[in-house]
């Protein structure tokens, strides 16, 4: 059984209580259609468990097959530095059909972030090392595609469906 090698830390994007009985970690790619389908499903899972579940998102862009995945990940990291990570994370998944620089800049504006600042950060690759370090940590932990989930540190090898995830999480409560 593959295990999460990189412990959850303050550097992570975490929704909920870091001391919740169960922490669900997703390694995801903003351009991956399977991650796009998982996005609303995760929201349902979070609603189902409420405060008993915390959720962490880490980057795992498959750049060779998803040309916008890296820039999307860096855009979310830019928003994170401005304390708007989750809004950007959600907005990117909700616009998955039309990813590209234009949309990233527009989303930044909608979140009252500097689109010029974002453009500069993307051009200079300011957040590339952060994304890369998520990716390598994921590969070391046995991430084998996107999305890959870890439940309290153990890789979840079932189908990324509501019922299966809920059953597995219930078992850890």
């Amino acid at each position, binding site marked *: 059984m*593959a295990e999460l090698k990189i412990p959850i830390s303050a550097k992570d994007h975490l929704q909920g209580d870091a001391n919740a009985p169960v922490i669900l970690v997703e390694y995801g790619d903003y351009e*991956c259609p399977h991650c796009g389908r998982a996005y609303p499903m995760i929201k349902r899972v979070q609603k189902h468990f409420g405060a008993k579940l915390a959720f962490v998102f880490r980057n795992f862009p498959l750049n*060779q097959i998803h040309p916008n995945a890296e820039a999307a990940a860096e855009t979310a990291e830019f928003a994170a530095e401005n304390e708007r990570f989750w809004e950007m994370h959600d907005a990117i998944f909700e616009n998955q059909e039309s990813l590209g620089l234009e949309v990233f800049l527009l989303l930044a504006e909608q979140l009252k972030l500097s689109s010029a600042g974002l453009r500069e950060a993307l051009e200079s690759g300011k957040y590339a090392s952060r994304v890369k370090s998520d990716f390598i940590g994921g*590969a070391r932990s*046995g991430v*084998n*595609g*996107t999305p890959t989930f870890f439940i309290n540190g153990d890789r979840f090898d079932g189908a990324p469906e509501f019922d299966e995830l809920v059953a597995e999480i219930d078992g850890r409560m």
Partner: protein
Amino acid sequence: MANILPPGTLAPDFALHVTPDQKLSLSELRGQPVIMAFYPADWSPVCGDQMALYNELLPEFQKFNAELLGISVDGVWCHEAFTHDRHLHFPLLADFEPKGGVARKYGAYREGDGICERALFVIDKTGKIIWSYCSPVAVNPGADGILQALEDLGK
């Protein structure tokens, strides 16, 4: 599951087509670590495709000076189309004639199905297998085992 060749075994040599007019033999790669990834078939429909993952990890493998070879029973033209479509930057070998001949030598052939197992081998620079792993055919094994084996090799 198949009985794949265990660590400590000398990796059987082979020469397989990598392109329609070019062959590659394992012995040509002596002097550097080699990762052999047997997999069932090209054109896996999911983003979680094993070869796509390894493609992204090539820079990591290169840090260990390791060469990655993907191997399936698909023919060279199939591999060529797959490589092009997925932007793969490492060779895919065609274990096509005799079908599965190399996979059989490594214990990585699924007789009834006529395809390779999802079997991984890390071979050291002297040609010896130092790590091997066979995953259930439906489970993409990821790369953590490969990275660990390469790291241990450097110690």
